[in-house]
Every structure is written in C-alpha cells, then in structure tokens.
C-alpha cells in the first residue's frame, strides 16, 4: 500500500485535485476569480510535491514503473500546467465553465503521466486515450465559435483514426512476439518484416501526436480553432510528454531494431524540419505560425533522438524544459493581445514596441530562444540536440538540420522585425496584463535566460539519464 502511494504519487495527487474541483463545481457557487486562485495554488502544490518523496520501482507486474528521470519529466509537465493556469487568466476569467476546463485539462495530464510511466502496451494505449479525449473537449471550449467546434471535430476524428492504426500495430506486435510488455520485448525482436510493419504502425501514433510530417495535417486547423490555452497545452505539454515516451520506447523496448528506427527517425526528422519550416514561412496568423514552427521544433527533437545514447535522452528532456518556457511565453503574449483586442495577425503586431514595450521584450526573448540564438536557453537546447545527433557521424544530416535552423531564423526574426521596426498607423493599444499572466511571463523569461546559463541543470538531467 505504502509503495503504491509513493510510486503513483503524482497520479494520485492529480486525481485528488480533479475530485476537489468536481466538488467545488457541484457544491459552491465560487466566482471565477476565486476559483482560478484555488486552481493555481493547487497546481503549484502539485508542482512542489513533485519534487519530494520520489521513489523508483514497478507496480502491477511492471505495467507501471517510475524512475528519477520519469519523476523529473513529470515535474516538467507539472510546471508547464502551472504556467498555463497562470498565463491565460484573461481568457479564464471570461469562461463560464472554468472548473470543467481544468477538470478536463487535469484528466489529460493524468493520462500523460500514466503514459510516461507505462510499462506495457495495454496501459500505454489506455493512457494515450485518456490524454486525448479530454483534449478534444477542451478544443471545443470556445463554445460560441464555430471554428472551435470544427477543431474539436477534426481532432477527435483524426485521433480515432490514429488510434485504430496504433491498435492494429499493437496487435501485430503481440502476434509477432507474444508479449505486450516493454521489458520483455527486446529479446524477442529479430527485425522480421512483420515486426517492422508493426513497428511502423506504432510509430505513426507517436508521429501523429508529435505532429511529425506527414502525420501533422490536423495540427494547424486544431491549433488555430482551439482556445489558446488548449493550443498551448497541445503544443507544449502533450508534445513534451509524448516525446519522453517516444524516447524511452525507442531506446528501451525497440533497442534491438535501432538501425531500422534510426534511419526512420532521421528521414522523418528531415521531412518534418523542412515542411514545418516551409509552412511556417507563409503563416499570417500568430497561432498558426506557432503551430507550424512547433512542427519544425519537433523535427529538431528527432535529431537528438537519433543519437541513441544518454546524451540523446538528456538533450531531449533539457530541450523540452526550455521549450516549455519559450513556447508558453510566446503563447502567453499572443493570448494577452488577442483576448483584449482580438488581433491575431502577425501584421497587427507592427509597432507593438511603441505601445507595449514589456510584452515586446518578452515576445522577442521567447522567439530568440525558439530560434536558438545565444545566449538564450534555446541555443543550448538546440546545441545539445545537434551534438547528440552528431554522435553517429551523420554530418550530412546535421548539416541539413543546421540549414533548417537558418531558415527558421528568418520567420522568427520576421515577427521580431514587425514588433520592433515596422511602422504602423494604428498599433495594438496598451494591453492591460493580468497580474498572474505577468507573473508567469516573468517566470518564463527568467527560465529562458537562466536555464541556459546554469550548466548544472543539464548535468543533473544527464546524471538522471
């Protein structure tokens, strides 16, 4: 019993919070402001608890397992969720169903936590569904907007399709090896065509969730239509968690087939970086822009994954930590502007610096970090990813990645140019930033600067790996 509590601590805490929110919703007529404060503090508590009483071990015959690295990954997710609860305060305050939104969000988080800890395909599939279905509902949360319903519809249909293929893949794995446990899998793999096919179908599920090209098509529509809080959860938290699982499945369960998946991931990485960049170049809507740029970012994560070493794991975890800060900061600024003025076009950002210098600087910092410009943390994140990928002597591949970095520089800097240099007759008016949004943006900015400079963070992750 005791072991059950310590090992499943993070899942249990989230479950408790979900129930608390349910009771609050049913039993009291708490106003949004108060409710938001309660939620934020519960999530902060959740984040803090994540750092204590961590243990390593297995439960339920290895269906569920946890290690120090997994605990750290969960803490990154908790941090991201806490920041999301702070960042979009403006939107939450207007929402009529705040408690439900967070109940759904936390359900998805619970699914992701279980997913990271999953030790066989059964719980893997269940938790993946748990992490997906609430998200479709969250996508629909701009209730009065048609585009939001469309996003939810597209998401649930695409997800169902992807799940179907995943299940097919899992059943093929079981058929070919006779096991669904990650731990038992490696010795049974021999690289037969059937296994490769099963593996490819498994990969598509990851590729779908991570928006790897060509499985990314749902991304832009869903991101654009969903409320920005959902979009940021999808693009940061959900992607981060899936990337963690992807790494551990590839590195542990499918290690004997590493030659196959190495080439596959490399190919997908190249396509993803190029197509993501090509689309990001042309976007006018800031949310769509961030969606496509996040596709390109995933391409870079794949570069690190091809490393197939401890450096590969730690560079991915480190990059996602930075990505949480950078991308959430960008989303936060975009949300602050769109919730007050409704403006979402990049052209609307022209002359923003004149009226909102503080927001402009945060946005610039976030974009610099996403583009990987030193001394922001994003630079170190990309550097370690590329270094990990270069360990296999694929210099041609690294060169392609580096060239893509340059292309991405162009579109990130385009936004910065609009903000700082372009003139505009009617710039966005002065934005009133909600205090909790401001607090979260400060945290993000500090994270962007400090995580890169404090080398011990990377060293720490490296020791966990």
């Amino acid at each position: 019993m005791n072991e059950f509590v310590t090992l499943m601590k993070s899942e249990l805490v989230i479950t408790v919070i979900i129930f608390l929110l349910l009771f609050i919703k049913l039993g009291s007529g708490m106003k949004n402001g108060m409710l938001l404060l309660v939620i934020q503090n519960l999530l902060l508590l959740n984040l803090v608890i994540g750092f204590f009483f961590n243990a390593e071990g297995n439960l339920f015959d290895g269906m569920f397992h946890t290690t120090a690295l997994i605990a750290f990954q969960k803490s990154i997710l908790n941090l991201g969720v806490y920041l999301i609860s702070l960042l979009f305060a403006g939107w939450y305050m207007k929402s009529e169903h705040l408690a439900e939104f967070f109940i759904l969000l936390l359900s998805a988080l619970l699914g992701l936590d279980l997913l990271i800890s999953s030790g066989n395909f059964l719980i893997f599939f269940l938790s993946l569904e748990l992490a997906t279905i609430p998200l479709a509902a969250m996508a629909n949360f701009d209730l009065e907007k048609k585009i939001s319903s469309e996003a939810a519809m597209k998401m649930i249909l695409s997800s169902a399709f992807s799940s179907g293929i995943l299940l097919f893949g899992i059943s093929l794995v079981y058929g070919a090896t006779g096991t669904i446990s990650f731990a038992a899998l490696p010795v049974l793999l021999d690289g037969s065509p059937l296994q490769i096919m099963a593996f490819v179908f498994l990969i598509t599920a990851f590729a779908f969730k991570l928006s790897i090209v060509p499985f990314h098509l749902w991304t832009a529509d869903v991101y654009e239509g969903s409320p920005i809080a959902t979009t940021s959860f999808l693009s940061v938290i959900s992607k981060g968690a899936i990337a963690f699982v992807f790494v551990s499945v590839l590195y542990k369960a499918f290690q004997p087939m590493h030659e196959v998946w190495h080439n596959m991931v490399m190919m997908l990485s190249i396509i993803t970086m190029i197509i993501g960049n090509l689309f990001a170049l042309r976007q006018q809507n800031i949310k769509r822009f961030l969606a496509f740029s996040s596709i390109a970012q995933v391409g870079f994560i794949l570069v690190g994954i091809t490393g197939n070493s401890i450096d590969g794991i730690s560079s991915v975890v480190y990059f996602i930590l930075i990505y949480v800060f950078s991308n959430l900061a960008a989303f936060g600024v975009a949300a602050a502007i769109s919730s007050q003025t409704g403006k979402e076009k990049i052209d609307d950002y022209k002359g923003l610096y004149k009226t909102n210098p503080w927001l402009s600087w945060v946005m610039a910092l976030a974009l610099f970090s996403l583009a990987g410009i030193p001394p922001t943390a994003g630079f170190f994140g990309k550097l370690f990813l590329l270094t990990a990928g270069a360990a296999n002597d694929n210099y041609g591949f690294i060169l392609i990645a580096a060239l893509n970095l340059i292309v991405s520089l162009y579109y990130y800097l385009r936004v910065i140019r609009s903000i700082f240099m372009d003139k505009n007759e009617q710039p966005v008016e002065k934005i009133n930033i909600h205090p909790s949004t401001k607090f979260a943006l400060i945290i993000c900015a500090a994270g962007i600067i400090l995580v890169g400079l404090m080398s011990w963070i990377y060293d720490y992750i490296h020791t966990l790996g």
Partner: protein
Amino acid sequence: MLNATYIALIPLLPLAGFLLLGLFGRKYFKNSSGIIATIILLVATVLAIYTAYTYFFEVGKVHGVYQKLIPLKYTWLEFSKGVSIDMGILLDPITCMMLVVITFVSLMVHIYSLAYMKGEERFATYYSFLGLFTFSMLALVISSNIFQIYIFWELVGVSSFLLIGFYYDKPSAVAACKKAFIVTRFADLGFLIGILMLSFYSGTLDFNTLIERLTSPGSTELSTALSSSFLGISALTWAMILVFIGAAGKSAMFPLQIWLPDAMEGPTPVSALIHAATMVVAGVFLVARLFPIFALSAPEALQLVAYVGAISAFLAAIIACTQTDIKRVLAFSTISQIGYMMFALGVSKYGGENGLGYTASMFHLFTHAMFKALLFLGAGSIIHFIHSNEMKDMGGLRKLLPITHITFLVACLAISGIPPFAGFFSKEEILLAAWQQNTIIYWIGLLTSGLTAFYMFRLYFGIFWSKAPSLSDSAHRKHHGEGGFAMMLPLVLLAIGAAAAGFIPFGNFVSSDGKVLESEFHLQLSIAPVTFGLIGIFIAMWLYKKQNDKPDKIAASINGLYKLAWNKFYFDELYIFLTKKIIFNLIAKPAAWFDKNVVDGLINATGNTTQFISKKIKGVQSGKVQQYAAYFLVAAIAIAVLFIYWWK
C-alpha cells in the same frame, strides 16, 4: 594556511567596485566614487600582500622548492574528460609577485587620480573602468587554466580599449583605442590558435597538467606534438610561436608595437597603470607562465622570443631619442624595457644557474613597474601643470615642481641602471644572463642601455633644466601648485620603491624551477653597463642642459637616419599600406563581391525557392479530415514498404 576566499576576493573586490560604480556611480556616488574605489583597492592590496607573504614565507616552500598551489578550482565547462575550462587560482612565485605589483600600482593610480581627474564629468565612470581593468588583470595572473587566462586576457583588452578612449569626444583618442584593440585582437587570434593546438596535443587546458605533459620526456603527448611538423618545424614549436604572437601583441613587441604610442591618448594615470606597469607586461607574464614548455620542448620558439625582444628593445630606444611628446618618449621606453624582459626570458634555460634570465626578467618586470609608473605619474603632474605634452613647452621646471623633479630624477637614474637604484640590479642581472648565453644579444642590450640613459636624461634636462621657466609658468605656480597631497604621495612612495626595490634578493623567491637561485655579483660585468649609462647621461647633459643649437645641428648632420627614427621607422605607414592598399583591394574587395553576389545570391535563391515550394504545397493543407486520413494511411504504408523492402 592560505584561505582561498581571501585570494578570490583580491580580484573580486575591484569587480564589485566596477559593478557598483558602473551601475550607480553617476547617480549616487558622483563625488565619492574615487574614495570608494580607492578604499576597495586598499583592502585588495592588503589581501594581496598578505597572500604573497603567506605564500613566500609560510606555505609556498616544500623541501626548498616553491610549489604551484591550486587553492581553488571550479570546473566551469567540461568538453570531454580532462578538457575543461576551469575558474581557478594558481599560486606560484610570479603570481604572488604580480598580485602585489598590480594592486600596489593600481592603488597608487587610484590615489593619484583623485586629484588628477578631479572635476572630470565622468569621474565615476573613470573609476569603474579602473576597477574593471584591475579585476581583469588580477584574474589574469591567478588563472589556473589557459582558457581562463584567455578570457581575462580579452577582458583586459576591453578595459584598455575603454580607458584609452575615455575622452571619446577627441577623434585622436577614438582612433587610438580602435587601433589598440584591433592590433592586439589580431595578435590574440594567434594566441587562440596556439591554445587550441596546445589543448589538442596535450588533451588538457589546465596549466599544471599542460606543462607536465608537454615537458616530461617520454610522454605520448609530447612525442606526438614534436613528431607532427609543418614546414620543418614541430607542431609544438608552432603552437608556442602562436602563443608568443599573442604575447607580443599585448606587450607591444616588434612588429606589433604600433598601438602603444598612440594609446597615450588616454588619461595619464591610465598610461601609468595599463601601458607601463601592468597590462603590457602580460605578454611577458604569459611567456613566463609557459616557460617550461618554451625552454624544454620548444627552444626554437624561445630563440624567437629572444630576438624579437632584443630588436624591440633596440629599435624602440632609437625612436625614443627623437620623440618630443614626453608621453611618447615614455611609451617607447616601455617597449624597449619590455624588450629587455623578453630577451632575458629568451636567453634563459630551465632550472639552476642557467635559469638566471628568467629570474632577471621577472626582477626587471618588478622594478620596471615601480620606476615606469613613477615616470608616467611624474609626467602626469608636469602635464597637469603645463597643459601640454610637448617638450618645447617645458623647461626649467625644477624650481616650480620640486617633488616631481626629485622623484623623476630617481626614476631616470633607476631606468638608466645607475647604482644603487633598482634598475641597476635587474638590468645587470639581465645582461649577465645574456652574456652567459648569447653575446650578440648582450651587445644589443648593452648598447640599448646607453641609449636608454641618453633619452631619459634628454627628457629630464629638457623638462627641468634647459631654458628658464617662462613668467606665466611662475605665476601659474602661485595659484595652481604642484597638485596636492593625493598626487604627491604616490610619487614619493613609488620613488622609494624605485630606489630600494633592487635590494630584494629576488633569486630567493623567483626562479625558473622554484628552487633558490643564488645571485652572484660580477663587478667586472657591471662596469660596462654603468659606463655606457654614464656616457649616455653625459652626452644628454652636454646637449640639453642649456638651451643651444647643438641637437638640431646633429640631427641635421644625420638627417636621413634622424628622420627615419622620428617617423618610427615608418611602421605605421607600412601597416596602412598593407591594410588599405593590399588587404582592402586584393582581399576585402573580392570577398565583398563574392559575399554580395555569390553568398547573398545563394541565400536569396534559397529564399525564393522556399517561397515557391511553400506556395505549391499549400494545397495539401486543405482542411478536409478525410484527406488527412488518406495521407496518413498512405504515408504509413509507404514507410512500411520503404523500410521492409529497400532500406534495411
């Protein structure tokens, strides 16, 4: 026992001063910034003296040999096992000596500037820059890692740049600081490549390990570094030559000396601190720090050091004889004296009796810091009084500036090597070392010592004797005075140093291998330099004590040579020709063309193609879910087929 915190505080205190005054000085400490900085530096000086005392007399010596202690080491960036950039403290005799020299001279300059820079609009900025410089220089000398030293080496360059260009509304100052920065930066490129080569062959950046691996015979690192060669010279020698290029740039050695005379555009106390006593000897310090590698594994590079030093010493002395701006005379004299230190290192061997040159070089560095800082501060007090740098505006000042006069005379005697002043002992030791190892260099050194005495006393007589002081100057004296206590105290303290520093038994403390080096005194060998010095002084006296036309006549009779020296052997013109005519036209212009047409063209082509493809594939993103699913399935099957059949 030594406490690493105290040692770390020596550089960190000036840094704190820099931050405090740099950030808040102009607003809150407009008038008190000088006092604050001076007090901070006083504490640092006390700590430095304490550290040096503890090292030399308590903890440094084990079995009669001074050890290289590392009281603090923090691994900052680790590239691979063994290769890391550390922030550490390395204590050995030369570090301790440098700590004392830097803090002491810097303290003198801080005190002096209280009066000299009074009323300056950017008083606080000035002191914050001084703090930055002192921090960087102190951190440079305690570096335990060759990359750490490089970092502070560049920081020293930056603070020198800031201080030379302190009067940034003066175009000549701006040009000078740019020149100094570019020339030294160019040389630092050599240093950086040298560091990379050394770390490549030795697999470490740590000084102690580096020296150990590259000097112990039979180590694999040493044999690979010696066996790989380029143009018949071993890789290790190339690396050491490149490091020396960096050192020569910072120390203004031939042919990179061109920046130092122009650097005199900075405030005079700055010239005393940076361009006389501390920064310019960083190059000497670097060679000394890597001396075991130079001496044991790359003797050819050390030969180069010796000849570059000797040539610099001699050429700069000749140029100094013709200059009329007193600060420029001192600048060339600095180059000449650093040349002495360099060739002393160059003729030295490692260990024992033959290591005399090393001890002598460090000794000269020490005494030179005293008397050269004194000369510059004295020049500062003269300029403060006359408001001109030109010798023709001066004359007969000995009555008007009595303290400056006496201290300046002491410094002149010291630099000319007249016993019993400090310069005599160190210079005598250098010449002795040269005599034992290389007679050509000995004769160059001897001749230079005569020239040194001549141009220093030309300066002395020109300033303090020559014509009678003009009436306006005398009137000036009444209300202006000599500059007050703050300016006179450093002069007197430094004069005591310049007079007495020679009696320190230096060989007991500093030697190439850490063992005690008994200094011998050879009377017959010290006769020649002293005689040369006296001859120089007498010629200067004959020519310049009274105003007359003899100097002009002599100058006219050797017109060609005189003009050549007066124009500093046309080095500046040569460099301008090289950069403007050759590099700009033959390299920069084609490179610019290539950049504009080929590189930019390629980038533009990439951009246009990207835009084009981007437009074409837009259709894929149709918004129809059923199409998305179709793409999904096709892609999954395609990947499966690809990996099952083709790409195994």
